């Protein structure tokens, strides 16, 4: 017993550090009181001034004034208690936290608004009929999306067939071959990911559509231009994560470089490459601008992507939204709702496959 006491005094095995990271500063209960007090006090003050003393109204103004009053009150209170340096630290922490959490508000508003607008008029027939017999004056619940779904699936599919092999090979060039053009290629891939989508559309229009006419294939070409940098960059990131030991083992066993890449590196990064493909699809599935000048849009079903104008989800939504008839605008919201649901599914799938890759590593 005495020994135990001594051991605890001098730091025996029981008092070894537990390996838990030490956080620089703990948040005391009194700090919570200060935060709550400043929030409540500023709310009361702003409410009094805003709606009682001055004839102001509107929720935005109120929220902004409340935030400003809170920061000032919080700063003054902590300065009284702990001094200027601590007060500045606390106030910046509060501002950064509020702004970072606040970014999610527009996202929730957008998703909520589109859902609220779209769910009202969506019917099962949306997925089985086309817009052929729907005019601007038809009731809002009459909407056909089959032609747009077929068009989007075909265009994105063809774009994938073009962009994925090219993107993966470019990533292999950047990370496995490591040739002389590596630096300029990387910089221009980065720069190309910021190319405006309308420029891609104009390019395909100038190069392809003027000779061959509007078609789903032209749209797919434009989309693949936009998809290429996304796939390349996302693939390169996962190729970089493949341990060098695997490559060295394969090369040491005598397999040539191309077999090492094909049989060792790419299979190891498989789920990462799938994530890259899904990210690429999510990038282009909602693109509207390049489609205006490549696939043009169509109200009836066109299954052949190589000839004639073809519809697609974002383009149909865009055209209907610009109509002057309220029923058409209602239809546009249905298209937008289905489109955002598609994007969400793709996004969640990409996250899932990225997580699986983390687990496997």
């Amino acid at each position, binding site marked *: 017993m005495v020994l135990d006491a001594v051991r605890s005094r001098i730091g025996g095995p029981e008092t070894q550090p537990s390996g838990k990271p030490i956080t620089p500063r703990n948040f005391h209960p009194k700090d919570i009181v200060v935060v709550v007090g400043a929030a409540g006090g500023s709310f009361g003050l702003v409410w009094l001034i805003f709606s009682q003393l001055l004839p102001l109204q*509107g929720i*935005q*103004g109120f929220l902004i004034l409340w935030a400003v009053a809170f920061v000032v009150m919080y700063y003054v209170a902590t300065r009284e208690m702990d001094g200027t*340096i*601590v007060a*500045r*630290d606390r106030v*910046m*922490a509060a*501002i*950064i*936290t509020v*702004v*970072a*959490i606040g970014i999610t508000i527009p*996202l929730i*508003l*957008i998703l909520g*608004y*589109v859902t609220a607008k779209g769910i009202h008029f969506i019917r099962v027939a949306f997925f089985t009929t086309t817009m052929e017999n729907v005019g601007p004056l038809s009731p809002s619940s009459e909407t056909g999306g089959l032609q747009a779904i077929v068009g989007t699936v075909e265009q994105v599919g063809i774009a994938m067939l073009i962009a994925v092999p*090219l993107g993966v*090979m*470019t990533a292999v060039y950047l990370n496995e*071959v490591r*040739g002389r*053009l590596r630096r300029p290629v*990387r*910089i*221009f891939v*980065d*720069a*190309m990911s*910021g*190319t*405006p*989508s*309308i*420029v891609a559309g104009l*390019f395909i229009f100038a*190069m392809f559509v003027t000779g061959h006419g509007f078609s789903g294939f032209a749209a797919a070409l434009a989309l693949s231009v936009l998809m*290429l*940098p996304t796939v390349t960059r996302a693939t390169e990131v996962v190729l970089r994560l493949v341990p060098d030991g695997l490559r060295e083992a394969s090369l040491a066993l005598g397999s*040539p*470089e*191309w077999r090492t*890449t094909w049989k060792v590196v790419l299979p190891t990064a498989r789920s990462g490459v799938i994530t890259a493909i899904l990210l690429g699809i999510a*990038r282009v*599935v*909602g693109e509207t*601008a390049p489609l*205006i*000048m490549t696939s043009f849009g169509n109200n009836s079903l066109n299954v052949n992507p190589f000839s004639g104008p073809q519809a697609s989800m*974002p383009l149909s939504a*865009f055209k209907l*939204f*610009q109509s002057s008839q309220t029923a058409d605008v209602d239809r546009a919201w249905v298209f*937008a709702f289905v489109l*955002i649901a598609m*994007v*969400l599914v793709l996004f969640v799938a990409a996250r899932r496959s990225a997580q699986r890759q983390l687990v496997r590593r």
Partner: protein
Amino acid sequence: MRPASPIRPPTTAVGPSEGKEPVATRIDDGPPRTVPSPREVVALRTKGDRVFRGVATGAGSFTLILLVLIGTFLFLRAMPAFKDAGWSFFTQTDWVPPPRGTSTSYGVLALLYWTVVIAIIAMVIAIPVSMAAALFITEYAPRWLKGPLTSLIDLLAAVPSLIYGMWGAYFLSSRMVGTSEWLANHLGFLPIFKPTNPYPIYGPSAFVAGVVVSLMVIPITTSVTREVFSQVPPGEKEGALALGGTRWGMIRAVVLPFGRGGIIGGSMLGLGRALGETIAILLIISPIFYIRANVIEAGANSIAAHIANAFGEASGISLSALLAAGFVLFVMTLLVNVGAATVINRSRSGAGVEI
């Protein structure tokens, strides 16, 4: 950290520069020993490998070729308009191309002006917000919150610009009227808020478009800035804290200076995105073709939005004029984006950052 082995062979004496001769060295308690210098590695490539390297190099250079092709095709198709309009294409604000107008009655100046104005409004909002978000994710957030918050911000980037435009036009535009009115009434002495007529209309303005575009730029800037901040050497951060700095003091002294290149590069990348935004702006604004200081009243424009809007009715010279505007946009965004990529790659913090 690699655990240090108790006996280190004196590797410092051996290097490629030492030549081909074996170097004799002595370890304190052992007999003299020779450490051979590294052999020169000669890769013997098979035919398959040469084909493989050729194909990969081809794919890699395709990106470069593609950019050249885009520039060339746009320029070739834009030539008729450039020839027709001459320099007035860059000095004329109105847009009435030949079938209705003359060769000097159309130009890209007003479009360019409004494109830049909307991009500036978006960046003024996006830069501080995305810096705060990046700092929160790397320095402040509890571990369980980091992943979900990053996903949510990335999701903001996945929402199609069409949806932003529809939401902006129907939801945000009318709700910003009050704020715009307040700005006009209380900050009306500033030229950007000064009312231009006694009964101003506020909805579809450059201000609303800028706010919506800022939402689309924030995830891009945030992800670059976050990557850079997460690469700050922990030793330097711990040093600042150990010297008694507060967390904010540490951020100001270590994180922000370290991440400067990433912040600048990420912002430029966001700027490139903001300059090229099309559908969202087109759906929100009501187009005008003159230059005006006021940004909160109805009426704005952008090169990309105008191309998308006017494309359906264009042919001949007017079509060529749109392609010329597209060429101007392409060159502008390419310069900004290459600049951004170079800044990020060159900076101490940004090497190896994905953008």
